[in-house]
C-alpha cells in the first residue's frame, strides 16, 4: 500500500486533465492505496467552485472530487494565491477582502503552497495532472 498525493493544474472547463486525475485517483484507491491530499494549482483551482454548473448530462467534476474525498478521507486543497485571483473564495477570505460572498465547495479548502510541500514530503508518490 502506497500513499499518493496529486497536483492538479488542468483547467476543468477546457482540458481533460481533471478527468484523468479523477480516473487515476479512483484506480489507485480501488487498488488499496491511499491519497493524502489533492492539491489544486493554476487553472486547476477552478474546479473548487460550488457554483460550477455543467449541463445535467455531463460529469460534475466538483461533486465527483467532493464525494471521493469524503468517502476516502483525503484533503482537497486549492492554493490561496491563485484561487483568489480566479475568484475562488471562502468565507474567511471574503471577509478579509471585503467581498460579498464565498463560493468554495465545502469539501474543498483554501490554503497555501506549504500544503503542497507537505504533501510532497509525506507521500510516496506525487503525480501531476495538467
Amino acid at each position, binding site marked *: 500500500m502506497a500513499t499518493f498525493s496529486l*497536483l492538479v*493544474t488542468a483547467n476543468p472547463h477546457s482540458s481533460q486533465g481533471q478527468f484523468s486525475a479523477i480516473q487515476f485517483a479512483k484506480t489507485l484507491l480501488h487498488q488499496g492505496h491511499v491519497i493524502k491530499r489533492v492539491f489544486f*494549482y*493554476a487553472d486547476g483551482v477552478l474546479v473548487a467552485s460550488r457554483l460550477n454548473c455543467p449541463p445535467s448530462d455531463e460529469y460534475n467534476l466538483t461533486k465527483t472530487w467532493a464525494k471521493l474525498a469524503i468517502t476516502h478521507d483525503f484533503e482537497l486543497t486549492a492554493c490561496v*494565491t*491563485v484561487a483568489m485571483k480566479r475568484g475562488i473564495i471562502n468565507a474567511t477570505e471574503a471577509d478579509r477582502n471585503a467581498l460579498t460572498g464565498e463560493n468554495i465547495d465545502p469539501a474543498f479548502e483554501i490554503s*497555501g*503552497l*506549504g500544503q*503542497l*510541500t507537505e504533501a*510532497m*514530503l509525506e507521500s510516496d508518490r*506525487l503525480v*501531476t495532472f*495538467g
Partner: protein
Amino acid sequence: MSKSLAIIFNKAPYGNQSGRELLDIALMAAAFDMEISALFIGDGVYQLLTNQQPDILHMKNHSSTYKALELYGIETVLVSSEDLEQRRLSESRLMPVSSLSNHKQINKTIAESDFVFML
C-alpha cells in the same frame, strides 16, 4: 535529508501564466528548505530576456523577480545553450541570473531531483 525540486520553464512569457505561476511555486517552496533548481529550456529561455515591458499592456512584469532567485536561496539556475542557439539568442540578451548550461547537464539535474514541476 532535504528533498530536491526541479522547476522547468519551457514556455515564453505573457501569452500564458506558466512562467509567473511556476516562479511563485519556486519562491514559496524555497521557504520550506527544499533544494530547488530552475531550468530554462525551449521557449522558456525567452523568460530571461532583458528589457521586458509587459507594463505597456497592463500585465505584471514578473521577469525582474527572476533576479531575486538567489536571494530566495535558489542557486541552481540553468539555461540551455542549445535552445538559445536554436533561437538565435546570445547570452548577452539575458538577465544575468542564469548559468549557461546544456541539455546533458539539465537532464542530469532533472534525473536527480526528487520532484519535477512544469506548468
